[in-house]
């Protein structure tokens, strides 16, 4: 089982991890071209005004001074103010708005992926080399081969424009103004007791979740299949079969638990690509999550937002991996922490 000490150690290490990530992001941003001052000042600004903005932002200081200031502020959880997105607003507030949106999407996508990917992988393994197997494997491979930015718009065309049964984009119908308590729209609409709004939000989530889910389903079913095959191959399974139990029971009883273990690791890694995938999904479906925030901030050289967003990604990623490790050790007591 997982010791408290193990968890504490891992949480403590978050500090250095985030320090490192912050440093790397800072370095990359300042190595890349792009001038936030001019982006802020706009096309009408005079040269002096741009200079003025540049010095107001502290961009005229030597880089090491900017770095020291940045690390000091970040250490006190002060991410500064955005240059572009609602300038003057703390980046922390913006992230608090945007983060739940992406988490909601990624979690639902992951759940959808698991729901379809696991059975598909098991089926494929049990019926290895049959037509079912070929179909599900090719299906899974097709799932990761079709780009989200092609399948997404085609889905919109079909379900929103031609059939008209699903909304095109966004998160909720335009007339609903739901107070953001948790930031998760499904929960907020329920808390507000507004079922019509909940329905609208749920309908808006269908297509993005499908698109993300297909992507993760493909990975999960592939992993599940090979993991399952390996377990089936193992000696004790042969022994179990020799003892005369039905093949099906054998598979279920002995196989599943062992086969799940590597798949759980995959979920951790997958969460990362879900976040990556959410950048594209959010762009296609016009969802103001953290992915679209990051892309627009990169385009506008909005340093504080890029820095904070990447830190948040790193934080989530580390935490998810910690959770995966805990689950892992619960499932597989052989691993001694």
């Amino acid at each position, binding site marked *: 089982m997982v010791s408290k000490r193990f968890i504490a150690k891992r949480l403590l290490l978050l500090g250095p991890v985030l320090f490192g990530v912050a440093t790397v992001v800072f370095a990359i941003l300042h190595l890349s071209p792009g001038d936030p001052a001019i982006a802020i000042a706009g096309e009408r600004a005079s040269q002096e005004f741009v200079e003025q903005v540049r010095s107001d932002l502290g961009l005229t200081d030597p880089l090491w001074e900017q770095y020291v200031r940045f690390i000091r502020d970040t250490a006190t959880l002060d991410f500064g103010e955005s240059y572009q997105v609602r300038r003057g607003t703390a980046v922390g507030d913006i992230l608090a708005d945007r983060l739940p949106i992406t988490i909601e999407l990624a979690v639902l996508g992951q759940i959808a992926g698991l729901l379809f990917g696991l059975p598909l992988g098991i089926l494929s393994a049990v019926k290895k080399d049959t037509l079912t197997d070929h179909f599900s494997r090719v299906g899974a491979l097709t799932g990761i081969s079709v780009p989200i930015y092609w399948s997404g718009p085609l889905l919109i065309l079909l379900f929103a424009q031609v059939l008209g049964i699903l909304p095109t984009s966004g998160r909720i119908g335009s007339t609903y103004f739901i107070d953001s308590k948790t930031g998760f729209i499904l929960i907020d609409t329920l808390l507000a007791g507004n079922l019509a709004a909940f329905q609208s939000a749920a309908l808006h989530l269908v297509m993005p979740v499908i698109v993300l889910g297909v992507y993760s389903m493909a990975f999960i079913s592939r992993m599940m299949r090979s993991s399952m095959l390996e377990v089936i191959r193992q000696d004790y399974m042969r022994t179990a079969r020799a003892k005369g139990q039905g093949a099906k029971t054998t598979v279920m009883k002995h196989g599943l638990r062992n086969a799940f273990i590597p798949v759980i690791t995959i979920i951790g890694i997958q969460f990362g690509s879900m976040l*990556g995938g959410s950048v594209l999904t959010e762009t296609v479906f016009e969802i103001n999550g953290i992915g679209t925030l990051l892309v627009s901030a990169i385009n506008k050289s909005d340093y504080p937002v890029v820095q904070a967003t990447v830190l948040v990604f790193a934080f989530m990623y580390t935490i998810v991996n910690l959770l995966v490790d805990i689950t892992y050790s619960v499932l597989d007591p052989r691993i001694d922490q």
Partner: protein
Amino acid sequence: MSTKTHSSDVERSIVDRIRASPFLTELLSNRIAVAGLSLIIGLFAVAIYARLVYDLDAIIATSFGSNPTEAAPSAQFWFGTDGQARDIFPRVLYGAWYALKFGTATVLASTALGITAGIVAAYYGDLTDNVIMRTMDVLLSFPSLLLALALVTIFPESLGLWRAVAALTLVYTPRFARVVRGAALKVLEDEYIEATRALGATDPRLLIRHVLPNCLAPITVQSTLNYGLAIIDIAALSFLGFGANPGDPSWGMMLANGVEKGLFSGAWWWSFFPGLFLALTVLGFNLLGDGMRDALDPRMRDAVD
């Protein structure tokens, strides 16, 4: 023993080896891999055909006046025309050449870097090994598209698609480095190398000569899978605005333009055909890669009776 016999012996042994090669037989009996292979062969054929037959400048040039704008597919324009009145068909075919060109560049560059890193790590061992390989591990632990997005900003915009190639090369290198290092370590453990080493032959070229043949198969699988990934990721970066130049017959660019400008106003063909070719290409590489992995992995072969 005459020379003749000797050479025919060699010939026979090569043929035998190919016949007996469990990898190739396995691969060719794997329907999924064969399907992938046919798709890719088709792609290469299309790419070469397009490269030989079409003139790039003519494909990029706008054709107002001579062609209709946004015309639906017809006998004259098989895939229709786009907003610049360009015939989409040759553009999509040429896109295959682009995909292969930039995909190949990405895969070759990351393979080369990966081989170098892997061999250097294995050869020098100790600290060098650790620094290189752990760096690779860390790079590997970032979501690849996000990492590419961060890296792509470092390169100047004027590089166009090469910018995406450069970023993705860095993203993919670790995968190759790991494979190569593993194989290299095995070779280093070989008694033969021990012996040559004892004789004072510490030339890294020696290592390359022995390591490369050994890890050719895993490198090929990795390259195949990364080929597909590279093509789809280059297109994704173009879609997000970090890539191709306007008018370039790159599938990602055509797709982005077609979705943005044509898809919902009825001109579905503008984005549909580039998207279809992109998806089929990536599918081809994924099918082949998957089949190869199966064929390579002895554990999978006798899994279930």
